[in-house]
């Protein structure tokens, strides 16, 4: 059981001869991703600093659209790239370093889906609430001032 490893990553596009080689290959990939993050973080390209779509306006469907498209409407593209790259790194750490790739489907789903579902829910709730509290503090008719 323990000796069987799946030796390909990127859906079979990159195959390795041994498990050790795969480990070094994954390290190279993770380092590459981290270097991209650091370079983007230091230089902050101007084009990625402003959102590409401004919030939709007018009625119920616009609001729904804003919620669905919120990563593009409210988030700087740079931050979106950072978060996506982080998830990519997390995937390869879990799949290749923690050997999730070699576990059965049921164990994989048990761990990943539980976590992903609960974490997405938690993030949605807390960020929504944080945005609301921001409105309470900063609306034109806010009852609370903090500018002193």
């Amino acid at each position, binding site marked *: 059981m323990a000796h069987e490893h799946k030796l390909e990553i990127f859906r079979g596009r990159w195959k390795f001869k041994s498990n050790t080689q795969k480990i070094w290959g994954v*390290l190279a990939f993770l380092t590459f991703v981290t270097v991209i993050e650091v370079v983007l*973080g230091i230089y902050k390209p101007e084009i990625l600093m402003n959102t590409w779509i401004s919030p939709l306006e007018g009625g119920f469907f616009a609001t729904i659209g804003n919620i669905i498209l919120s990563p593009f409407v409210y988030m700087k593209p740079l931050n979106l790239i*950072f978060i996506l790259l982080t998830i990519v790194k997390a995937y390869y750490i*879990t799949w290749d*370093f*923690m050997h999730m790739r070699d576990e059965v489907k049921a164990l994989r789903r048990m761990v990943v889906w539980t976590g992903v579902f609960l974490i997405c829910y938690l*993030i949605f709730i807390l960020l929504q609430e944080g945005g609301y509290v*921001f409105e309470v503090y900063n609306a034109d008719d806010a009852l609370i001032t903090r500018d002193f």
Partner: protein
Amino acid sequence: MDSTVSSTGTEGKIWGGGNKPLKASYGKMMMWFFIVSDALTFSGFLAAYGFSRFKFIKEWPIADEVFTHVPFLHGQELPMIYVAFMTFILIMSSVTMVLAVDAGHHMNKAKVTLYMFLTIIGGLIFVGSQAWEWATFIQGDYGAVQTKGGNILQFGEYVTVDGAEKFKRVSIDDFAVSIPDVREEHERKNGLWFREEASLPPYTVNEIFQGLEANPNILVRTQLINEEGQKTVLSREESLKQIKENGSLVVKGANLRVNEYGTSLFADFFFFITGFHGFHVFSGVVLNIIIFFNVVLGTYERRGSYEMVEKVGLYWHFVDLVWVFVFTFFYLV
């Protein structure tokens, strides 16, 4: 006829028992369960950080201006470099860990020993780096004045670098005038013997104000982030007015009560989340050391399986995984 049923007639069928549907050993599965629950704990912390950040989205400190130091390179502003190094160290120690697990599958004791040792060294370097990062953060850089409303006012001046005008921070030590202290620090020996107070700030607000008045080039910067994504710099009159009217406390460095870099929640979350992660790394190192000695003593050789290395490896990779997220949300985003 038997009076009790000794056989259910399901032997060999899927519900007959004895199956291992997940094809993982008990220990490994329990480690996965622990990892899932610990992941939820960490995401709870990070989501709470997100909540506070969204609440103060217009005035949250800019990470690149807070974490600019690299050991041995004094006075240079190098954001990201040191944390990138720390991230690399942790990923590297993850690699040596997975190599140890792989060597364990081949029952190669010498290699497992070597890789476990390297993993421990990587973990120690990481914890040490984090301690240094904390010390730098606590000690502070430029100092600031906290207002009555709890906002932070920082100081700086416009300088021309390569033809472009740039706002450069100025340390309070460089311009504050020293007025002989009117307020003496309360110690056990000069006041009530059963009470003491925390040491007084390095300067009083009045000393800062006098210094600001004497240096016409110095301006005040508020926490508010403007359209260009930078902190707002006040005009000269407004600077003097803010310090005089609202200044209440001189702050140097950061702790759980005050934070010279911006809202104090930023420091609270920094200490709490990186501290909790550092505690995980530390306990991971302790576990690794225990396993290392077991490997050296040949415990797993005799047991015929190095699965213990694999289990502790899962934990170690998880710590690395968490750091990837902490890195993103504290230093990048």
